[in-house]
């Protein structure tokens, strides 16, 4: 009787295994094929008209480089009417970005591009999106959690290169204040860190303060710089980690009547207003990048991934692609040439 039970159990287990294998393979393929099929998601054949839905979530509609990044994305899909790209406004709030990510999951988009507001806050929702088979690509402000790809200008190198250039313009130990990004963005916007590291390494700058601001606007830059100018009478360099702050700082220097004191101001980004300010001699220079190429690179990356059917999730969440785009120092020497080649909208300025 015992023997019979054992045989019966063996038969049942074998039947169950066969049934499971038959259920898993849809074309009667081998177990190896089944394994592969379970690991990869279906490829979206965008070249043969397969529909592909993409979403772009910037920090907010007011994000300055958002229209240029979008222009780059749209140009990359100009030949693909089957690819749709919707944009969403998160109003510069990480909670809204989380809600919008959930919205994209609900809508079943294939790709999400995101300028993250917080390096950590979005991680669990991005993981949820990847689990749902969505390719998530972060642009500039990244997320610490694993996602499919990250496209970024070299922020750290930009700060380092700017410091290198500025050191040739000022004497050793130049008194410097860094007007930095909001504290929560510092982990991913590392230009200030790059600048500081060069200063520590070479002793070219004496960093008086690393001044973090919650908002990056001309007005806030003006207020911050005014405060710095009052606090540090002998400040020589104002290294600003974005152009709006740099422009505000230039206005503050002018308002304080210290435009002839030789205070050097440097920005980051290369916005139209900053390029104009450089041409006008109001700020010395900026670490320039063209957001168009960020958008273009992000879209091309996405198109590759959806065709290959690869995302960080089906790669085992252990790897994500990092694409670094270069920045260049723009000063009065090369500003006109840069303006002529930029994708930023310079129509408000006469060049």
């Amino acid at each position: 009787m015992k023997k019979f039970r054992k045989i019966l159990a063996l038969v049942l287990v074998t039947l169950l295994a066969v049934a499971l294998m038959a259920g898993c393979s849809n074309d009667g393929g081998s177990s190896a094929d089944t394994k592969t099929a379970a690991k990869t998601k279906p490829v979206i054949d965008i070249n043969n008209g397969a529909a592909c839905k993409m979403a772009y979530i910037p920090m907010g509609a007011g994000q300055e480089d958002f229209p240029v990044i979008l222009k780059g994305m749209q140009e990359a899909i100009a030949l693909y009417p089957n690819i749709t790209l919707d944009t969403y406004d998160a109003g510069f709030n990480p909670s809204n970005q989380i809600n919008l990510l959930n919205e994209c999951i609900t809508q079943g988009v294939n790709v999400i591009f995101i300028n993250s507001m917080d390096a950590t806050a979005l991680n669990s929702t991005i993981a949820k999106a990847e689990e749902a088979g969505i390719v998530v690509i972060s642009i500039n402000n990244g997320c610490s959690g694993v996602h499919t790809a990250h496209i970024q200008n070299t922020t750290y190198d930009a700060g380092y290169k700017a410091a290198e250039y500025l050191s040739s313009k000022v004497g050793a130990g130049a008194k410097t204040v860094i007007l930095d990004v909001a504290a929560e963005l510092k982990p991913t916007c590392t230009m200030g860190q790059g600048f500081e590291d060069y200063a520590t390494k070479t002793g070219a700058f004496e960093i008086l303060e690393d001044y973090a601001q919650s908002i990056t606007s001309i007005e806030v830059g003006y207020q911050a710089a005014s405060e710095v100018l009052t606090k540090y009478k002998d400040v020589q360099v104002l290294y600003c980690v974005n152009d709006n702050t740099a422009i505000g700082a230039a206005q503050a220097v002018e308002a304080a009547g210290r435009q002839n004191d030789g205070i050097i101001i440097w920005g980051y980004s290369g916005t139209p207003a900053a390029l104009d300010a450089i041409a006008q001699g109001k700020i010395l220079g900026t670490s320039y990048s063209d957001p168009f190429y960020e958008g273009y690179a992000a879209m091309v990356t996405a198109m590759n991934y959806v065709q290959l059917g690869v995302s960080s999730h089906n790669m085992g969440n252990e790897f994500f692609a990092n694409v670094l785009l270069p920045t260049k120092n723009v000063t009065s020497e090369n500003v006109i040439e840069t303006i002529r080649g930029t994708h930023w909208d310079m129509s408000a300025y006469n060049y």
Partner: protein
Amino acid sequence: MKISQKITRKLITLALIVILSAIFAATTSSFLKLINIQEILRVAAYTGIICVGVSFVLISGGIDLSSGGIICFTGIICCRLAVLGLPWPLVVLAAVVVGAACGFLNGWLITRFYLNDFITTLATGFVFSGFGLLAIAKEPSGTVMSQTIRNRGFLMLGKHVGGFYYIVIAWVVLTLIAWFVQTRTRYGLHTCATGSNAKSSEMSGVNVRRMKVMNFTICGACCAIGAAFTVAYQQTAYLSLGSGMGFDAVAACVVGGVMLGGGKGDAIGAFLGAVFMTIVTNGMRKYGLDTSWQYVFEGAVILIAIMSDAGFAVVSARRLKAISEKNANEEALMEAQKGGGAQ
């Protein structure tokens, strides 16, 4: 069967919710998906829990715009304590105590120094956000550190059971408790009386100052509860946590029929208001409209809701006036008849 004014007001909001949902369901493919409904409820629950607290303040004739600051501060406290590995009841309890203390401070300042609620809570909101910045984890260089919570017990608060997020369950329970307190207890009656006419209430023996302080304290505690669940869901806290929530919660309460001047409304109205606001935002996103048009439509729909509320208030006021006039006429007639009889 006569339906009371209170119920009619709620039925209007409910009807608006049903109409909007029907429109979104008919015109979009993803509105009725289970995952979307779960998401609507989760987002509504976050606003809704804050609305429960704000409804107490509004009904008693005040306003609290510091909710965002309290959420930020208590959220960061939750994050710090959860990262330390404390058990979740302790984390939540600590946040609630701090939130309640913030609310108490609001109430105390307003009643002790006879300050204006609007400006005071706007100012304290900044103070609480500042406390948040002080409390947030920093690196030795002073840079804010993004901390990921790995405390499993605490993270459970951000999960769901049977398709319902725990925050939704907490929201429903809190709403029912608040509704009971507001409509079935002496405390609720006094809150309502304080909002209707503070002077008369005081003359009738209601301790108006204490009521106000208590209601602000409840509001602070609710903000902390909302923050705890949200931080558990997001697995971290950050400095802009809760930003804009002060206005959102007040708007949701008003849409749900809680009167800005005080004296009217309850937690069920605030509940419906939170659902309505979330559905509007969620539905509008599905059309793939340009952001500017999304804002225009969202604002317009909320305006329509408030206008229908105002219209209803006018009709009710006219009805009340007509009834009181009719009663006055009847009384005058009876007086006249009595006088005639005596002669």
